[in-house]
């Protein structure tokens, strides 16, 4: 048969397009939107950090890039080839930094967004999908929804078996921690102040996503009487609360608070219970709000209830990194993580 340009073009396009059309599947995402994705996915665009991290843990080879390029210390803990993929910007949330035309050029099979499924974000997803013609899947990013979102994520990417394994792992950790914490009577639960910012005076109010895991671990958030997101408080207010434990993500604050006379009389400072949360390659306590917070449950458990959590954090860290981040860290790298450096 003579190969004309026309028949070649037809054949090639059929070969490329037909499997997609034939083997597309339609799923319902967490926001109740129906999304049609190809059965074989090879390019996934993450809309924000939680999507990028979760997708990296599930199916790294199809991750197109990162909302922000990973820095040197983070790269140590990631697969060298995937970790260095390019910076793509954010698509939703607080401000779009991705150009939609660049997005089109990347030809993703679908856009993955993990976070709030509130109307604002569902409608943004609809709009981007209509504008670009690229399927946009929005998954529930709440901490308690991680296993369910993994399973849906597995269906979207054809990675059901691995998604099930990761979902089970998270469920086990959550179940273990919940049952141990449930044995602690209310009056024995430590009163915790969560400190952010170089002065340690920004904190998460009751129900804020920033202290979701701290509250999950049964700690009493001293700022929890006021509901809301992040807010600034005064040192006086912290002295009045007199928390037993301070958990912080800020290295400057953690380094200075022990010698700061203003904080000297706070119980947590006197009793040396100020803890700097691990953050490599992604934060263990506050952000990004994704699966990276799962090992943080063990870490919080150990410092809140030392007797109830005898497990060795080194082992847990090594296992989690190997299973989720595709890389087994050395002992020195694990020590670096657990010291909260980075």
């Amino acid at each position, binding site marked *: 048969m003579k190969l004309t340009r026309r028949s070649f073009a037809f054949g090639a396009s059929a070969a490329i397009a037909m499997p997609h059309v034939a083997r597309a599947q339609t799923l319902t995402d967490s926001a109740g939107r129906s999304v049609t994705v190809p059965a074989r996915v090879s390019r996934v665009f993450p809309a924000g950090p939680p999507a990028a991290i979760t997708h990296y843990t599930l199916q790294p080879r199809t991750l197109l890039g990162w909302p922000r390029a990973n820095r040197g210390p983070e790269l140590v803990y990631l697969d060298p080839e995937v970790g260095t993929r390019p910076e793509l910007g954010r698509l939703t949330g607080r401000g779009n930094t991705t150009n939609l035309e660049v997005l089109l050029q990347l030809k993703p099979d679908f856009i993955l967004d993990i976070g709030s499924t509130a109307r604002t974000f569902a409608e943004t997803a609809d709009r981007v999908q209509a504008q670009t013609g690229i399927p946009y899947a929005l998954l529930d990013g709440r901490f308690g929804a991680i296993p369910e979102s993994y399973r849906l994520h597995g269906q979207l990417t054809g990675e059901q078996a691995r998604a099930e394994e990761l979902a089970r792992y998270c469920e086990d950790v959550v179940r273990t921690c919940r049952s141990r914490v449930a044995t602690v009577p209310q009056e024995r639960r430590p009163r915790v102040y969560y400190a952010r910012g170089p*002065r340690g005076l920004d904190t998460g109010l009751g129900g804020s996503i920033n202290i979701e895991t701290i509250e999950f671990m049964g700690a009493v958030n001293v700022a929890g009487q*006021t509901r809301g997101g992040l807010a*600034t408080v*005064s040192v006086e207010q912290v002295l009045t609360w007199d928390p037993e434990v301070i958990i912080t993500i800020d290295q400057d604050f953690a380094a200075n608070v022990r010698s700061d006379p*203003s904080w000297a009389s706070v119980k947590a400072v006197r009793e040396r219970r100020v803890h700097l949360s691990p953050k490599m390659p992604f934060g263990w306590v*506050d952000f*990004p709000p994704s699966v990276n917070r799962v090992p943080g449950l063990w870490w919080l458990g150990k410092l809140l209830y030392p007797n109830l959590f005898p497990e060795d954090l080194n082992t847990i860290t090594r296992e989690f990194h190997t299973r989720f981040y595709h890389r087994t860290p050395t002992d020195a790298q694990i020590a670096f993580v657990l010291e909260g450096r980075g």
Partner: protein
Amino acid sequence: MSEAAAPAPAGTGAVRFVSGLGLATLLLLAGIMLAFSVGRFPVSLADLGLALWSRLVGQPSGLAPAAEAVIFNIRGPRVIAAILCGAALAVAGAAFQGLFRNPLVSPDILGASSGAALGAVIGIYFSLGIFGIQGLAFAGGLLAVALVYLIGSAVRSGDAVLVLVLTGVVIGSLLGAGVGLMKYLADPYNQLPAMTFWLLGSLSGTDRSDLLPLFGPVLAGTLVLFALRWRMNVMSLPEEEARSLGLATGRLRIAIVAAATLVTAASVAAAGVIGWVGLIVPHLARFIVGPDFGRLIPTAAIMGGGYLLLIDTLARSAAQVEIPLGILTAVIGTPFFIWLLVNARKSWT
């Protein structure tokens, strides 16, 4: 302007000044007592007296260490910082309003606040410590005004003062765009909230180490402005009249702008962007003691200190969570500003 050129008879003016200044000082002292006795941590005025007395005689006060920490490390420095920032903004506002002969001018007219804001958000973007952030804010404020002044004086057409103000507006909005860019690029989980909080203004983290970097520039700038009080009176005249009286308006303008910018930048570096104080307080002071700068500067300083102290006391004691100063001053300042707009012509001339 006629009042500046031909002040009211010395006798009545002096009485007005002494009584006005006395009243402002009394209000400030009352404000200090109030500020010390309210707060989230229970410390009474008696505790304060006891703590001060025991420091004086060098004996232990018997107070809980936490109460001592509140007095000497937390509430005390914060009260002093609020007074210094309020005084700085009011003095700078009075100086700029006189220099530009316009009642609607505030200390950030030449870009000091936007420059400081850009410096601070750059510091937050690069995850610097408190010292770095405040240092960059201070430097940013000074550099912004220097830039405005250089460009403004290079333009040799039209009214020099008008050119300067226009340059300030233009550079200010450019710096504002820079702040917007840094917020856009910032990490939305960590840096963006920090920037937002900083830009709203707060004294919540003030401690003793913040006082010297604030006190030094504020004192120096205020003293320079006070020393220039007679020349500033002449400066309030139209430029030709001032020149005809033998004043080197160019050099004097540099000195006034530099001194007022120094105090503004120090204040913004310590407390973030707090609007309205530098706009409103000079007016109140002018109503009470008249436009003579020798009287206006000390009165505005004391009133500004008292005003911001009251606002900050409200900000830190009204709720468990701090209320940003910029929001409180705006809520209180807006009705006043509208009233001012309606009455501007009457009050100025």
